[in-house]
């Protein structure tokens, strides 16, 4: 019994162990299957819950969007081609059974739609109806009754109330250029409407509230330009039908995508190249300027011809005062007459005059041009003889000088008639004044006439000349009458014409004065002197304007007097 009884307990224990093991194994297997099923069920439930939550969230979003833009009840929107959702909200919590929702397409019968209620926040209730039959491109009449009373009535077309899902997969990428971002997205998954869509892109600075909008038509990518470099932007996109065939409301915005624009970095190589090129250009410009400096200066500041070389000291010493310069630096002008007198041949001038009853012959220098008829060789010979005679007459005494001066005073004291009768008188008489420049080559003076030495010299010379004449009764001439207001009896001043104040200097000017005064022109040529009786001895004057000699000497140097 014990043995029988003993083994069974052993077997029982073993069997128990085996049974327990078997039971445990079966239980484990069963537990695994259940757990797998349970996991699958939970996963499905979670998925459904998630999907439902997402659809609820989408519905809430669209309801909010539509409530913001649509004032008319019931508000309806289509998410696709085969659906239409209508809703309205009311205060309180009424049961949906109190409401009747009827819809009617044109040329169709009325249809009823089951109304559902859901809380809308606060004390409000939202009533929703989804139409079972959807027809596009035809007017739809909606009518809502509450307890048999008309609550809402509206007419619409479903193809004009689309409220789409936002675009998907918005991608923002950097462009190679600074300040640009490239956007791309997928259109709302809606058949036949892909190409008739319009998008709105919003891009704002990160953290900023105000942004900019860009509209993109019929394209699912865009490039944002003129952005700040190195700045983070928040980008969103929303969609809507373009309004031609289908129309609707703006969808919700896509989730925000942030991207930083590429920084505006400068390539150091480009900077170095720019610097080097600019340096080379600068050096080239500098070299060109230096090489062409004279030319450029001449072009920019052309040389103004200065009279400084022709008038030494006029601007530096006398500050442009020409009269003063003339008075002080006449020596510099001794060279000037040579510029005007190319013909340096000394000639004789015979001036016929008859001053009163006692004509006086005086010798004056004159250039050859005024006395062209005097160039005859025979006359010159005569004049040379006369000059020789005059040279001898220079040795006469002072008594004749006094007499000559007395005669001049007498002449001056007489009333002077007008010049023209005087000229005619001069022409009628055979009174001669012979000027010979070449007879006294060394007697030229370079000092200006106003010098008192010249005056005395000339006066003495005149006196000597006058005294040398045997029959010289009276001094000439126009000079006497023209110089009636002046006591000077210089040869130069004697040729001064009243209106020729510009002829104070220079040996050539006296000649011009003679020509201008009409004396040399009106005077008959030597033929008349030859034909007519010689009224007196012709005196020669060793006048100072010996041009060739003056020209040979440098200006401004004191000329040694020959005597």
């Amino acid at each position, binding site marked *: 019994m014990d043995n029988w009884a003993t083994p069974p307990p052993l077997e029982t224990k073993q069997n128990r162990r085996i049974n327990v093991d078997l039971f445990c194994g079966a239980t484990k297997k069963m537990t695994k299957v259940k757990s797998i099923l349970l996991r699958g069920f939970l996963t499905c439930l979670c998925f459904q819950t998630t999907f439902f939550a997402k659809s609820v969230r989408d519905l809430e979003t669209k309801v909010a969007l539509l409530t913001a833009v649509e004032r008319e009840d019931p508000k309806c929107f289509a998410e696709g*081609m*085969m659906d239409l959702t209508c809703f309205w909200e009311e205060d309180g919590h009424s049961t949906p059974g109190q409401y009747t929702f009827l819809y009617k*397409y*044109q*040329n*169709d019968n009325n249809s009823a739609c089951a109304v559902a209620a859901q809380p809308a926040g606060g004390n409000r209730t939202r009533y929703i109806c989804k139409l079972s*039959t*959807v*027809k*596009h*491109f*035809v007017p739809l009449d909606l009518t809502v009754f509450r307890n048999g009373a008309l609550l809402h009535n509206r007419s619409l*077309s479903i*193809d004009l109330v689309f409220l789409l899902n936002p675009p998907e997969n918005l991608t923002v990428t950097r462009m190679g250029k600074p300040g640009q971002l490239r956007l791309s997205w997928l259109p709302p998954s809606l058949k*036949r409407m892909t*190409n*008739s869509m319009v998008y709105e892109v919003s891009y704002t600075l990160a953290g900023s509230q105000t942004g900019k909008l860009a509209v993109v038509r019929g394209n699912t990518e865009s490039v944002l330009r003129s952005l700040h470099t190195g700045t983070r932007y928040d980008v969103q996109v929303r969609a809507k039908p373009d309004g*031609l*065939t289908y129309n609707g409301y703006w969808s919700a915005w896509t989730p925000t995508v942030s991207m930083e624009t590429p920084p505006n970095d400068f390539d150091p190589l480009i900077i170095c190249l720019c610097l080097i090129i600019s340096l080379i250009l600068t050096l080239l410009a500098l070299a060109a300027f230096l090489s062409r400096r004279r030319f450029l200066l001449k072009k920019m500041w052309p040389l103004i011809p200065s009279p400084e070389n022709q008038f030494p000291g006029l601007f530096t010493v006398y500050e442009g005062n020409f009269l003063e310069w003339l008075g002080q630096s006449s020596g510099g002008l001794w060279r000037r007459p040579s510029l005007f007198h190319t013909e340096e041949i000394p000639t004789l001038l015979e001036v016929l005059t008859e001053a009163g009853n006692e004509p006086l012959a005086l010798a004056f220098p004159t250039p050859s041009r005024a006395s062209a008829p005097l160039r005859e060789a025979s006359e010159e010979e005569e004049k040379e003889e006369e000059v020789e005679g005059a040279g001898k007459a220079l040795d006469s005494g002072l008594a004749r000088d006094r007499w000559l001066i007395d005669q001049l005073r007498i002449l001056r004291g007489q009333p002077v008639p007008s010049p023209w009768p005087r000229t005619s008188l001069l022409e009628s008489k055979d009174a001669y004044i012979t000027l010979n420049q070449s007879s006294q080559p060394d007697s030229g003076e370079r000092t200006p006439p106003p010098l008192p030495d010249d005056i005395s010299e000339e006066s003495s010379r005149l006196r000597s000349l006058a005294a040398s004449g045997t029959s010289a009764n009276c001094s000439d001439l126009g000079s006497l009458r023209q110089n009636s207001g002046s006591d000077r009896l210089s040869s130069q001043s004697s040729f001064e014409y009243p209106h020729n104040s510009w002829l104070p200097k220079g040996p050539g000017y006296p000649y011009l004065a003679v020509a201008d005064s009409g004396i040399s022109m009106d005077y008959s040529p030597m033929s008349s002197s030859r034909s007519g009786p010689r009224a007196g001895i012709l005196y020669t004057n060793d006048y100072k304007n010996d041009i060739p000699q003056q020209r040979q000497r440098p200006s401004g140097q004191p000329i040694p007097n020959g005597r």
Partner: protein
Amino acid sequence: MGNRRTNGRNGEDPVSEYAGFDMEIPRLIAVLLMVLEWTRPAQPSPLRLICDPRVLDSYIKEARDTEAAMRGCREGCGLPEPITVPLTSVDFSVWEKKDVQEQAREVQAGLSLLGRAIGVARASVPNAELQRLIDNNYSNIHSIGQVLNSLNIQEYTPSAGVSGGENTWRVSTTSELFRVHTNFLRGKVRLLLSAAPACSHNPS
């Protein structure tokens, strides 16, 4: 002579062959270009313009403008008698089940009815400006018919006559007529053209 020629050929053959081969390549390229150029018109380039949705969009805009103008017309815009017009409603669940021929027949019949109705409306509208708009829409309907013909969609004239069939109804005002016209172009005509087999390579 023969030897010399043979030798000459032997000496010149590589060069001549090389030159001949060099000349063959441009000829081959020219022939290829000609073939490509010749085969390129085989593509349905004339149909591209027809498949362009912008053509129909312009017609739709004109129809919409006419509809707006007719909506503002109060006097003299009534039709002498109700005119049969096609139904414009499109239930996509039903429309997509129809084949292209049936869709084309429906569209052709609708265009025929609309053309006839617009002709009647033009005679009843006294306003010259409205008449001009109506004329444009009338010509547009004929243009759409030609487009459909070029897309190998056979012309179909409803034999039921003015009384209309199952897809017709009657309107009594020009405003209603042109609303039907606009909706018909936006709906059935556009759906048919965008789904035409000739334009299938260019989804629009």
